[in-house]
């Protein structure tokens, strides 16, 4: 019950912080509610962006991945994210500058101004479809861990309602500012707890090197690439997963929302740079904890391995400290649900409702966004009811799907010849291919290299084809009035630096 008490306490603190943002009047206008009035300083930005991406996947999922698949897992979410420092900067520098000049509030805005309303709506729907598996993964992770930590007092299904209820509550109240404050505090908390857990797990067997030598003696394949006859962690598998996760990060709503919320250029750069650096350390640790888990709690398979984070904590730490360590993982999951659900609710209300009904007032938009928060959360709880795919795999599928919008975004900012037809076609073809691969071959086709796809995984094949469609589609069509008109703003000479 200690764990449940701590987790409930953290949920209540989060709700209280959001309530303070609400009381201080940070949610009065749409600009305040959706982008915090572009007022966030860089400490809050760094930890809020970090927390909005680091999730049940990074804590529970990566330890599960490390436990099942070994050191190759480090290519999924550690050094492969360091390139985001420059990728985000190049892709979102214009998001920041144009967003401030044009008072953008959602990720659909640049697509709408550059390619027109149809692309804006397509994008919002694609991002929503891609976000759902990721949010489901978080909620599923929360349910699994809550059941394990409460020793069955709170069942998996009850756990699905428990934390999402609090998240919906504080999102609806505090808007972007409340969410960013909560994210920042949760980000600091789980970063500290990961270090504490790592220390205890490694000290259980005399330190990091002796622990890894024990694991290697029992499971040498976990230290190799290309094991299981070259199937697990082959070069194509590593490249496909590493690229999917990194490029997916560029295209999710969080970097857009945080770029709009940034007070300064320095804060923007610090936020983008820090993310990869912090991931390099903070996500490596739970992965190593998972690998070490093979000699502490052996024999877990499939979805059951998602519990390894909590189980090694319980096996190596005093009860109260283990509860704090797992609560760290919970806060990571909460902040990601928070970031994604908020981003999507903002997209739906501003990019779709406001576009279709321009006379919608600011206060009505806020109410509509709050309703969308509740609806998205309810849908994800419903889908998570019967879990049959582990958290890590669900998350990679989500990142792979959203990454197909990469070309449309790049074209919007850096290619004058890009057309709306090219952007829409490439996005739809990319998503359709991801969905088809999943329906035809299940998660194996999306995640693992297939001979039929020239030894690429489904994500990489869909991504490359989507790029080809974008270039060919743009060359074969003529830029319309919207694209022509947008050039003076999107390619203004002052944006070249």
């Amino acid at each position, binding site marked *: 019950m200690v764990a449940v008490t701590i987790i409930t306490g953290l949920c209540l603190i989060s709700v209280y912080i959001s309530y303070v943002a609400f009381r201080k009047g940070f949610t009065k206008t749409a600009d305040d509610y959706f982008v915090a009035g572009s007022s966030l300083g860089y400490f809050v930005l760094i930890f809020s962006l970090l927390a909005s991406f680091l999730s049940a996947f990074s804590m529970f999922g990566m330890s599960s991945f490390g436990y099942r698949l070994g*050191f190759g897992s*480090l*290519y999924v979410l*550690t*050094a*492969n994210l*360091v*390139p985001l*420092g*420059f990728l985000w*900067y190049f892709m979102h*520098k214009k998001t920041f*500058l*144009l967003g*401030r*000049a*044009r008072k953008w509030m959602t990720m659909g805005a640049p697509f709408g101004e550059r390619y027109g309303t149809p692309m804006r709506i397509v994008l919002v729907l694609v991002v929503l479809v891609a976000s759902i598996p990721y949010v489901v993964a978080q909620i599923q992770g929360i349910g699994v861990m809550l059941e394990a930590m409460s020793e069955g007092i709170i069942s998996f299904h009850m756990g699905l309602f428990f934390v999402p209820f609090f998240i919906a509550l504080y999102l609806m109240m505090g808007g972007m500012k409340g969410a960013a404050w909560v994210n920042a505090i949760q980000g600091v908390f789980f970063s500290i707890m990961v270090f504490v857990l790592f220390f205890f797990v490694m000290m259980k067997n005399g330190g*990091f*090197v002796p*622990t*890894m*030598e024990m694991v*290697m003696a029992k499971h*040498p394949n976990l*230290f*190799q*690439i*290309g*094991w299981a006859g*070259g199937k697990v962690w*082959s*070069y194509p598998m*590593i*490249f496909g997963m*590493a*690229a999917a996760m*990194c490029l997916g990060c560029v295209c999710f709503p969080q970097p857009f929302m945080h770029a709009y919320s940034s007070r*300064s*250029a*320095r804060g*923007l*750069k610090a936020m*983008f*740079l820090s993310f*990869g*650096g912090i991931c*390099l350390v903070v996500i*490596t640790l739970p992965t190593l904890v998972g690998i070490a888990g093979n000699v502490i709690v052996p024999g877990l398979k499939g979805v059951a391995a998602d519990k390894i984070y909590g189980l090694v904590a319980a096996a190596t730490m005093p009860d109260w400290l283990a509860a704090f360590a797992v609560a760290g993982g919970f806060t990571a999951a909460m902040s990601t649900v928070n970031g994604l659900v908020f981003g999507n609710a903002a997209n739906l209300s501003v990019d779709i409702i406001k576009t279709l009904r321009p006379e919608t007032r600011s206060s009505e938009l806020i109410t509509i966004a709050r309703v969308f928060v509740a609806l998205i959360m309810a849908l994800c709880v419903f889908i998570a009811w019967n879990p049959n795919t582990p958290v890590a795999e669900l998350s990679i599928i989500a990142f792979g799907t959203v990454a197909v919008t990469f070309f449309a975004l790049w074209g919007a900012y850096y290619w004058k010849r890009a057309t709306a037809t090219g952007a829409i076609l490439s996005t739809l073809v990319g998503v359709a291919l991801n969905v088809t691969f999943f329906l035809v071959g299940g998660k194996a086709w999306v995640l693992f290299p297939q001979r039929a796809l020239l030894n690429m995984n489904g994500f990489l094949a869909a991504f490359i084809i989507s790029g080809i469609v974008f270039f060919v589609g743009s060359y074969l069509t003529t830029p319309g009035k919207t694209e022509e*008109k947008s050039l*003076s*703003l999107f390619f*203004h*000479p*002052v*944006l070249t*630096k």
Partner: protein
Amino acid sequence: MTSNKKKNLIFLILFLVLTVFCWCPIGYGSYGKVGLIMGMPSWAFYMLVIGAVLFVIEWVYLFYTDLALYDEDLEEIMMALEKTTTTQVTIKEEN
């Protein structure tokens, strides 16, 4: 080619090469048995080091060169962009 363009190109090449290394153990990892460095397979250790090097280079690019965006530039950029936006609106209204 101007000095800034040259510098940009050098950074871009560095970013791309190191990104490939961060995304794939090509050139520093091979299938099968492997030696350990500090308890980790050698390729995992090298990958983390490459990640750290890329991080430092990004830091230099963003904060210690004149190639990136700085707060001092913001006012001028915003004024120019707002002028463009106003011109667009005026033309639209006249039409």
